[in-house]
């Protein structure tokens, strides 16, 4: 088994545009910014919908289900003391053009494949809930 991520989590600043995203997992739900005018999920979040330019945008809950689009097993000690861990781009089922860079957890690297169905789990660090993903069937 590899680690769930680097030895130390470098954390995002909870600035106005993104605080909802990084704290969404407090109630176990993943939320993405959503355009109320055209229905587009906007990620990374911003003050305007890049598809229709509406400013009527607000966080909206998603199912947390997604698929592994690609992945890598990192061995380099960017953050000293880390064991190997799996980084992935996971697409969100509600709008697969949205991809989250994340870690895959509770999975053997050899079992990971492109197209693997996964769901969100959150790692709570300080005031941030990091969305990580684990294979469907793992709670």
């Amino acid at each position: 088994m590899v680690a769930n991520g680097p030895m130390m989590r470098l954390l995002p600043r909870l600035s106005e545009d993104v605080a909802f995203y990084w704290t969404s997992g407090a109630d176990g739900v993943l939320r993405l910014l959503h355009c109320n005018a055209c229905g587009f999920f906007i990620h990374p979040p911003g003050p305007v919908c890049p598809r229709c330019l509406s400013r009527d945008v607000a966080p909206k809950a998603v199912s947390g289900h997604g698929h592994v689009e690609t992945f890598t097993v990192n061995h380099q000690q960017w953050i000293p003391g880390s064991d190997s861990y799996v980084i992935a781009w996971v697409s969100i089922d509600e709008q697969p053009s949205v991809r989250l860079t994340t870690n895959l957890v509770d999975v053997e690297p050899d079992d990971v494949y492109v197209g693997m169905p996964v769901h969100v789990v959150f790692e709570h660090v300080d005031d941030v809930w990091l969305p990580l993903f684990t294979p469907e069937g793992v709670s």
Partner: protein
Amino acid sequence: MSPPPAQEPLERRAIISGIGQSDVGRRLGRSDLDLTIEAAMAAIADAGLSRDDIDGISTYPGMGAGTAGFGGPTTPDVQDAMGLSLNWHDGGGEGPAQMRAVMAAALAVAAGLARHVLVYRTVTEGSAQGTGGRQGIGVSSGGGGMPRFGGFMQWSLPFGAASAANWLAMVAQRRMHEFGLTREQMGQIALNARRNAALNPKAVYRAPMSMDDYLAARMITTPLCLFDCDAPCDGSTAVIVSHRDVVGDLDHPAVGINALGTALRGRPSWDQFDDMTSMAARDAAASMWERTELTPADVDTAQLYDGFSILTIVWLEALGFCGRGESGPFIEGGAAIARDGVLPLNTAGGQLSGGRLHGFSLIHEACVQLRGEGGERQVVRPGGRAPEVAAVANGGGPIAGTMLLTRGVG
């Protein structure tokens, strides 16, 4: 040949009149300004100019950018050190990759803002990193309380995706999935670079490397191993971009700028770009071919960015040297990209073996080849013909630029 563009691309008013390069090494222990002056003086002399002829300056990435040893001296540093009196000056890190500095210079010359522009790129990453190895972006800023991150790094740093190595490993993995790319195919980029580096006295790694060596190297981030990643080094490369009406004054062939490729039509993002197998190289290359009557079949040598081997593989397809998804078979065995192959590639060893001079060593080598000054590594085309057209590409991922250079002006 394609139909000519409706209007002559204005970059054709510019040429590369001179080239220069400092000493290059893993750790030279010299300042970035010192290396830059060495390269700049060499380029000015090569162009047959004097200091007082230089009326423009341009660099990438400019002030305050990147990890230690990455940025090089600013244009004010170099202007003041060399006593330059300038009509135009520019430096910055946003744009079509490292060669944005050459592109900006060409456009300034075409617009008449300057006549002879000194363009340089300097790195001292080898010395700055010491023996500690390559740093992740942003990771080194710790100490004295935990920093928090905004901007694009906030989306990857929390997950330990701290380097382009991680992001491009995912591009490579996706290409393995979609196109069946193999590690042995990817290794041909590294082996080709090493073979060519043996004929480049300035290359930082010149000892022979076998496929077994490549496959046995330690993994950085799967499927990229150590030899898929370029080598941090110290060095400076400079070119002089001049108006084409000085062609007759040169004692060597002018290098014409035939077309620039600058587009970014997809999203400017590593993880949100629509196609995970091509990214911005696709757009930059397409926009370049839209500006020229030349075609991929006219290219005699390609100097394609190899900060990571997978980027070269992406560029080969983006520029149309092989079909989409076909770069693996194209480079299989290495014959096609050898100096005597259909597409002589990275003939000075690229960055994988030449050292991470960050785009500009590729521009420099394209000029060397077009001028016929490659010595032992000079490309000779079938029939004994010297190279006439070179494609150069910088960057990859969400930041890409490319240009087509020619021996002489059309």
